[in-house]
C-alpha cells in the first residue's frame, strides 16, 4: 500500500501541475471578460427623453447607451453625453403609458362615436422612468428624465453603477396608484 502511494503521488502532482497550467489561460480570460463587462456597452433603443438633456427637444425618442464612461443619448444627428463622474444620483420608478396617445391618438379616440374612444384608453403598457441627476462644469444642477421600455432602465442603471456612477440610498417611493377599470 505504501509503495503504491509513493508511486501514485508524483503522477498526481504532475497531473495537477498540467491541469493548473491548462486552466491558467482560462482563469485569466475569465478575469479579462469580467473587466470587459464592467466597461460593457448597454444600448436601449426607443427611449423617450422627457426633459433635461441639453440640445434634445423634450419628448423626443432616441437610443440611450452606456459606453466608455458616459451615458449617451442619440437621436438622429443629435448626441448628448453625461460623463459618469458628473452623475450625482440615479432614481428609478414605474409608470404606465397609453398604447394610443399623442395628438393623433387623442384625435382618433375623440373621433370614435358614442364615447367608444374611452375603450381605447384601457390599453396601456408599463414603462420605467429613470431620473439622472448630474452637475455641469460650473456646478449647475441638471436632471434628466428618461422613459425606458419596461425592465430596460434597471440594466442601464446597473451598467452605470458598475462603471462608478454615484447612487445614494433612497427611501422607497410611493407606488403609483393602481389603475382600476371603471
Amino acid at each position, binding site marked *: 500500500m505504501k509503495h503504491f502511494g509513493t508511486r501514485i503521488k508524483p503522477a498526481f502532482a504532475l497531473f495537477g501541475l498540467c491541469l493548473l497550467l491548462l486552466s491558467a489561460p482560462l482563469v485569466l480570460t475569465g478575469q479579462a471578460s469580467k473587466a470587459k463587462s464592467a466597461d460593457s456597452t448597454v444600448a436601449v433603443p426607443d427611449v423617450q427623453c*422627457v*426633459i*433635461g438633456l441639453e440640445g434634445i427637444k*423634450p419628448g423626443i425618442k432616441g437610443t440611450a447607451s452606456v459606453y466608455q464612461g458616459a451615458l449617451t443619448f442619440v437621436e438622429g444627428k443629435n448626441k448628448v453625453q453625461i460623463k459618469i463622474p458628473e452623475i450625482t444620483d440615479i*432614481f428609478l*420608478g414605474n*409608470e*404606465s*403609458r*397609453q398604447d394610443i*396617445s399623442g395628438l393623433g391618438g*387623442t384625435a382618433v*379616440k375623440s373621433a370614435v362615436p358614442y364615447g367608444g374612444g*374611452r375603450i381605447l*384608453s*384601457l390599453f*396601456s403598457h408599463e414603462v420605467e*422612468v429613470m*431620473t439622472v*441627476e448630474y*452637475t*455641469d462644469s*460650473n*456646478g*449647475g*444642477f*441638471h*436632471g*434628466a*428624465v428618461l422613459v425606458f421600455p419596461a425592465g430596460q432602465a434597471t440594466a442601464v442603471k446597473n451598467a452605470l453603477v458598475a462603471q462608478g456612477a454615484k447612487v445614494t440610498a*433612497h*427611501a422607497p*417611493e*410611493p407606488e*403609483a*396608484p393602481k*389603475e*382600476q*377599470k*371603471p
Partner: protein
Amino acid sequence: MKRFNGTAVSKGFRAVLCGASLLLVIPLLAPLPADAAPPQEAAHKLSASAVQVVRTQSSATLTIPEDFRVATYEHVILELEATKKFQKVYRDGDSRAESVPDLVIVTLVPATFTAGSQKEREVTTVKGATSIKINVRFTKKDGTVLLEQPIEGKVRFYGENLAATKDFAKKVAKLAKDNF
C-alpha cells in the same frame, strides 16, 4: 309696385354710414381699460438681469416622486428662458451666479401633490387628475422676498402625468412675465 328712386337709396346709405361711423368713434371716446394704460404699473415692475432657479425642495411630510421634482425644475428653467425677461437663467449651484449683483433667486417649495392616473382620466374624464401645487418665491440675494405665490400645475383630461410639471412651469413664466 313701388320703385326705389335714387334719393331714397342715398338717404338709407347715409343713415347706415352715420351708424357705422358712430360705432367706430364711440370706442375711441370711451376711457382706456386698465390694462391698456400701463405706464404707472410699469414703474412698479421688478427688474433683474439674471435669475437663479433653486431645485425643487424635498419635504419630510410630502413625498413627491423624483421625476416630478426634476421635471418641475427643468421646465421652470426652460420656460423662464423663453420669456426673455432675463439675460441669463442660472441653475442651482452654478458658481457664475454669485457675481451677478441684481440676481433674483427662485425657490420652489412643494405644498401639495396628487398623483393621478392617465388611464383613469381618459376613461372616466372626471377622475384621475394629476396636480402639483408649489409655493414659488422670488427673492433677492439678501433674502428679501420680492414675490411669493402658490401655483398649481394640473393635467385634467388628456396627457401624461408629468405634463402637470409643464403646466406649472408655464404659470411660473407668466408670473415672471407679469412682474418683471
